[in-house]
């Protein structure tokens, strides 16, 4: 059976979430800033039209924001996560085969829905998501994921599509692919585009017509798969069971700059506790722990950043073990005399917690530690994160 994919993508997702609860900002330029660093992470169409770029620090565009009365929000990830879940649950009503690709995108497999007009089905999805959640989505339909991405782009950028574009029903596909710049193809970054352009490949259509062996040599098997997808042969299936996580991170900027080791240890301890909670929630244990810290490169003054990755003595999911290692590492890379803006803790070498090997030299009672962690998580689930925490995290609720 021929695969059919729909990519449903929320328009300006974070900005749209803010508008659902603040309808007075409909039609007005709004931007959402990342926490603390204050870089633009989402823009409404009106803000894009003002030329506000993605990732720009707020202080660089402050006059522009003022002049055009741009509404500025700091990001509220609890809200966005909740709204995302509502959108995805609504999509599940339309199609049981669904891959949540990111917080604001999902692939749907529309195999079995061919009997109805797919554009109409797309419009019904769009209308329902809008009514149930208040979020506008665009729908792109095609026989491969890569083409569905392109169809979605067309739906989003061409107002007379009404937000839904079915590439299967498009009469002049070559002309359409000819208008898509090669760097806008899913998976082709600026680096690949730079490599392709001197060889006369500037559009999606030209990329689809490239020689297989040449692509394979320059862009590897992943590139060849992508080109094949552009030709309408599906190589990427729906991934309904998300691949096991490769890494878990907790990294964020401080509310106020930190310039003492004691404060830094506290922050790293809090971040480690968070990431350890995530680890246990996924039923995983970690073998490697990385810590990093950095000063504020946008401010004047001496700059320093460093990262240290260390193998943990044993594969573990215990907050105590992880904090112990994280503190050792942060002490090793911390330098006096700097104002630090940000620190982070990353866990890698993740394996299912029930598959860890016992260590001959491990002198701790693992079962006891497990019970302790279960109790810790249960308390924090019930009374809120940070209710019960390690003393190294400080005595205020994190």
């Amino acid at each position, binding site marked *: 059976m021929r695969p059919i994919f729909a990519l449903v993508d929320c328009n300006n997702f974070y900005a749209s979430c803010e508008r659902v609860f603040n*309808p007075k900002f*409909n039609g007005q330029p709004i931007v959402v800033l990342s926490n603390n660093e204050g870089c633009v992470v989402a823009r409404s169409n009106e803000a894009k039209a003002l030329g506000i770029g993605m990732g720009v620090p707020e202080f660089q565009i402050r006059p522009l924001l003022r002049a055009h009365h741009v509404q500025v929000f700091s990001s509220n990830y609890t809200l966005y996560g909740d709204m995302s879940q509502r959108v995805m649950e609504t999509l599940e009503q339309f199609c049981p085969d669904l891959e949540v690709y990111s917080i604001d995108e999902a692939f749907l497999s529309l195999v079995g829905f061919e009997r109805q007009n797919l554009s109409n089905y797309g419009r019904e999805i769009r209308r329902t998501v809008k*009514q*149930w959640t*208040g979020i506008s989505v665009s729908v792109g339909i095609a026989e491969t994921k890569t083409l569905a991405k392109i169809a979605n782009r067309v739906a989003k950028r061409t107002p007379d599509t009404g937000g839904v574009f079915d590439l299967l029903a498009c009469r002049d596909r070559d002309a359409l692919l000819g208008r898509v710049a090669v760097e806008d193809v899913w998976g082709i970054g600026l680096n690949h585009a730079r490599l392709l352009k001197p060889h006369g490949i500037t559009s999606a259509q030209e990329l689809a017509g490239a020689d297989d062996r040449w692509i394979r040599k320059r862009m590897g098997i992943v590139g060849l798969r992508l080109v094949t997808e552009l030709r309408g042969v599906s190589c990427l299936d729906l991934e309904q069971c998300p691949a096991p996580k490769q890494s878990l991170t907790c990294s964020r900027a401080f509310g106020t700059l930190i310039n003492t080791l004691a404060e830094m240890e506290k922050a790293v301890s809090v971040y480690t506790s968070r990431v350890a909670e995530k680890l246990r929630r996924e039923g995983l244990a970690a073998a490697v722990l990385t810590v990093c810290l950095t000063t504020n490169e946008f401010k004047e003054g001496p700059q320093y950043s460093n990262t240290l990755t260390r193998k943990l003595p044993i594969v573990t999911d215990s907050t105590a073990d992880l904090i112990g290692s994280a503190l050792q590492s942060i002490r090793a890379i911390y330098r006096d005399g700097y104002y630090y803006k940000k620190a982070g803790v990353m866990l890698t070498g993740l394996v299912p917690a029930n598959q860890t090997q016992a260590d001959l030299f491990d002198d701790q009672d693992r079962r006891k530690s497990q019970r302790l962690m279960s109790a810790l998580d249960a308390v924090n689930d019930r009374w809120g994160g940070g209710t019960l925490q390690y003393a190294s995290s400080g005595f205020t609720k994190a």
Partner: protein
Amino acid sequence: MTGAGIHSGDLLIIDRSLEAVDGNVVVAALDGELTVKRLYKRDKTLRLLPSNKNYQPIEIQTQQSFEIWGVVTNGIHAL
């Protein structure tokens, strides 16, 4: 909306999946402002009716930005 049993400070349960019909209590966004009113929807006339007699019904003009945000199904009143 005291006439409809809704008081200041109450929590409302809103079902966005319901299609609002004449007589429903709704949360509406009128010119960007959220408001709770009873919906009058007959022929082509749309009105928002306050249940407090001190307020006047609002006739929705076509040039106004108007959106039904959701249908109010229940209210929770603090004692």
